[in-house]
């Protein structure tokens, strides 16, 4: 089984978000970048398929040279090969088209992406790839098993879950549950050394088009000071929620 894991290079979850160039560009100064958490759950599940079912794992990212440390980390975790499509991403469609072009000329049985990236939160790349390639697609995946070319998947639905099955090839949008937080792997020294020898192929973009653009960013208005209510006066809290906030 050949697996492709789509890796988004995103600011760490603890990052303070700022913008530059008159609020048109994300300010990466001092920001630590990581593998998008939803992608990392998928990569870790892919490692299970590698170890238990001899799968081969390739990882892919659309981005400039600055994203290579994130791909190297994926290699250090255990991916066999990395591919970087050498272009700054414009929107979700652009990224999906670039990755879909690569998939067309390489046969993958399973493509794993995150349900969304934690930076632009478009939540569309795996679905767009599925639409472009006309392959099966399931998102919000919290469990994934593959036997005899058939995938069995648990999907989170609003207020519950659903068990689905379909044949490969398949693309999923993964999230926590695929593996637990405690299953995530911190690359060890051996993995890091090995990662240096593994192939990281840089391929030129196929110049896909985009349809949307972020033209300006801004941060939420600063909040008003919290109103503190004495724990002996909970009636006041109910009164404020009812009469002032009007939410009760």
């Amino acid at each position, binding site marked *: 089984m050949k697996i492709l894991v789509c890796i988004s290079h995103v*600011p760490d*979850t603890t990052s303070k*978000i700022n913008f530059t160039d008159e609020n048109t560009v994300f300010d990466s100064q001092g920001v630590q970048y990581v593998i998008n*958490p939803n992608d990392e759950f998928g990569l870790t599940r892919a490692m299970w398929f590698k170890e238990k079912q001899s799968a081969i794992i390739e990882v892919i990212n659309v981005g400039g040279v600055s994203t290579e440390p994130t791909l190297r980390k994926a290699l250090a975790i255990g991916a066999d090969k990395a591919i970087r499509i050498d272009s700054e991403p414009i929107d*979700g*469609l652009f990224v999906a088209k670039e990755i879909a072009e690569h998939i067309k000329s390489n046969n993958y049985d399973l493509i794993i992406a995150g349900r969304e990236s*934690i*930076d632009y*939160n*478009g*939540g*569309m*790349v795996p*679905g*767009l790839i*599925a*639409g472009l390639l006309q392959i*099966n697609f399931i*998102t*919000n995946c919290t469990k994934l098993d593959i036997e005899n070319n058939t995938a069995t998947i648990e999907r*989170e*639905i*609003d*207020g*519950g*879950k*659903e*068990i*689905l*099955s*379909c044949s490969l090839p398949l693309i999923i949008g993964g999230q*926590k*549950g695929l593996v*637990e*937080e*405690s299953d995530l792997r911190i690359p060890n020294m051996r993995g890091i050394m090995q990662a240096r020898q593994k192939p990281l192929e840089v391929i030129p973009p196929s110049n896909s088009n*985009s*349809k*949307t653009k*972020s*033209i*300006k*960013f*801004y941060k*939420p208005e600063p909040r008003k000071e*919290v*109103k*503190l*209510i*004495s*724990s002996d006066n*909970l009636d006041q*809290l*109910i009164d*404020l*929620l*009812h009469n002032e*906030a009007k*939410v*009760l």
Partner: protein
Amino acid sequence: MSVLAYIESSKGKVKKNAFEIVSYSSELAKKLDTDLVALVLNCNDISELSKYGASKILKVTSSELENFNAKSYANIIAQAAKISNSNHIVLSSSLDTKYLAPLLSIELDAGYLSNVVELPSSLSPFTVKRTSFTNKAFSDSTIDSEFKIIGLSSNAFGLLENNVESSVEDFNPSLIEEKITIKSTEKISGKISIADADIVVSAGRGLKGPENWNIIEELAETLGAATACSKPVSDMGWRPHSEHVGQTGKPVATNLYIAIGISGAIQHLAGINSSKIKVVINNDPEAPFFKAADYGVVGDAFDVVPRLTEKLKAFKA
């Protein structure tokens, strides 16, 4: 040219988020100087849609569409957009609809923006405000294509009454072959899901153990609220992942969010930023959550929560 609003339903009834979708779409149609068409699937009770401006309703009834299937549903919405000559399509932010949206965008060759929070600030170029960086920021984003899909963030626009006469037209789309089999569906019965809730009661490590969640559940039940939790609590297995709120969990955009024994890590606060009113109950006055909340009570959860529940019961009675 029309605006098409896709209305979700469950067991023959429109979902609660439908009224916000219709309210938004109706205002969008006014801005574009065109009409609104609402598409409903397997839904009998559609009378309330006219209250929010759905002047034309396309009604699909098919036993083969009983279960949600992203590809089939996307295909039907695309057919509806074409027959109603709609090039603006408005969708909700439910998990099902976010699942089908990218498939629809490929079918229609449409630009798609999710997490939109306002009506367009400009029609040319078509510009809307959306959340990004998991609610830590907003962006003004444009859609350049002829077909446009707008995914509206839950509770971002609210309801706007606009009584109209609705005309209902039956619509029989062609159906595509489904390649994904649903083996089972499990809904937690008797509980309100976070997506449908107006109020969410959420708790963290301050509760000390899963056996103490009864006070949280009782408060939630009194308020008709959904329950949620912080990341450590879901990682430790005290509560299911589906309750985990935050950057890698669920976003919560509700009217009232009550956080009990949650310190307020930046990732958690990002996840709840779109909620309107936030209340924090925590015994540590230095907890970062107090900086993000509207109302705060410094106190021990085991003392404050049961008393608050009793007082709310009296208030509701």
